[in-house]
């Protein structure tokens, strides 16, 4: 091989090797904070949802004796307070948040009845969105702009999807939900 070709071959090999060393995609890893103040703890964590730019992670955890909703600030590596959202007699699951973190929807099982709740972080109030629905519900999700909420309901003996307007608290009108 000519010296010139050797140089080109060396450059090509080096570029291939460097490409293989790319740091992304990168797993941050389930780092554990035994104090219970971090993202992961000595107890199970579930249902993570990551916010815009990875700025926060919403999830559930058993770390306080009941399944609660937690909001983790990834920039400042600390949990944010959610006053009035969790309670000892409630099993909360499947949280979903708007992009600004103001609105959080989740299911809460209270005394054997599960409903979809909407929590406002500014007023620290929550509203039962499915109080009038006499059926089981699951997997709520809210759009990033906070306008729309969708969830599962099994009124017909199977899971169907319902779509609600967050402002009115009622189903979106004129949406063809039923099968033909």
């Amino acid at each position, binding site marked *: 091989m000519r010296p010139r070709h050797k140089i080109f071959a060396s450059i090509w090999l080096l570029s291939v090797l460097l490409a293989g060393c*790319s*740091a*992304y*995609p*990168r*797993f*941050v*890893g*389930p780092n*554990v904070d035994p104090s219970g103040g971090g*993202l*992961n703890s000595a*107890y*199970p*964590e*579930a*249902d*993570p*949802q*990551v*916010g*815009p*730019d*990875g700025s926060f*992670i919403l*999830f559930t955890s058993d770390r306080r004796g009941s399944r609660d909703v937690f909001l983790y600030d*990834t920039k400042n590596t600390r949990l944010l307070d959610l006053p009035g959202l969790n309670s000892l007699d409630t099993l909360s699951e499947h949280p979903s948040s708007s*992009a600004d973190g103001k609105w959080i929807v989740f299911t809460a099982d209270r005394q054997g009845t599960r409903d979809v709740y909407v929590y406002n972080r500014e007023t620290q109030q929550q509203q039962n969105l499915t109080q009038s629905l006499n059926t089981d519900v*699951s*997997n709520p*999700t*809210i*759009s*990033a*702009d906070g*306008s*729309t*909420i*969708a*969830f*599962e309901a099994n009124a017909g003996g*199977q*899971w*169907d*999807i319902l*779509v609600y307007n967050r402002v009115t608290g009622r189903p*979106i009108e004129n*949406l*063809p*939900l*039923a*099968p*033909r």
Partner: protein
Amino acid sequence: MVTRTLRANVLPGVPATTTSKPSRRQRLCAVTALFLLSACGGGPVVSSRATLNSRYSDEQPSLSSNGRFLAFVSDRHQRREILLYDLQAQQFVSLPNLRGLTFLPESPSLSATARYLVYTSVVRGRSEVQLYDQETQRPLSLTATYDGLVRRPSVSPDGRYVTFETSRRGQWDVEVIDRGPEVELDTPATPTR
């Protein structure tokens, strides 16, 4: 009469009176073609004003940032699949290659304009977190070499970060993937559709 009308539409210059009944061979070919086309199953049929729910299970909804697109898991086409519904146009959006390249998909999650779709799919008996890009129309595994079970993934609105549940430590924990600063971000200012 129907045959005559269809033939007249396809070949306007040909008098309708020249049409004849299709032969047995032509009918066989037509039936075979219809069977093969139906077996392709290249995703949901984009129709005018389709209903969101079916007579089968429709579950695990995920909304795009402005609430226009809704991804969910459905059993309506005899095989579990992820469907994307446009709530504004009230019709399904085609996701080329997704149905054929995913097996038992679960937990879909959408980025801001629904460009990125993250979900789990079973590969060789093991669940993987995959990312489908509507630009490339191909799924990409994010956890092919990951050590541990994975479930319930979620993608950030911009598409850069993905979280999921991991069993790596022997219990369910939260794992985060940073796809890096080089990925094309999905922002509402640059909608893909």
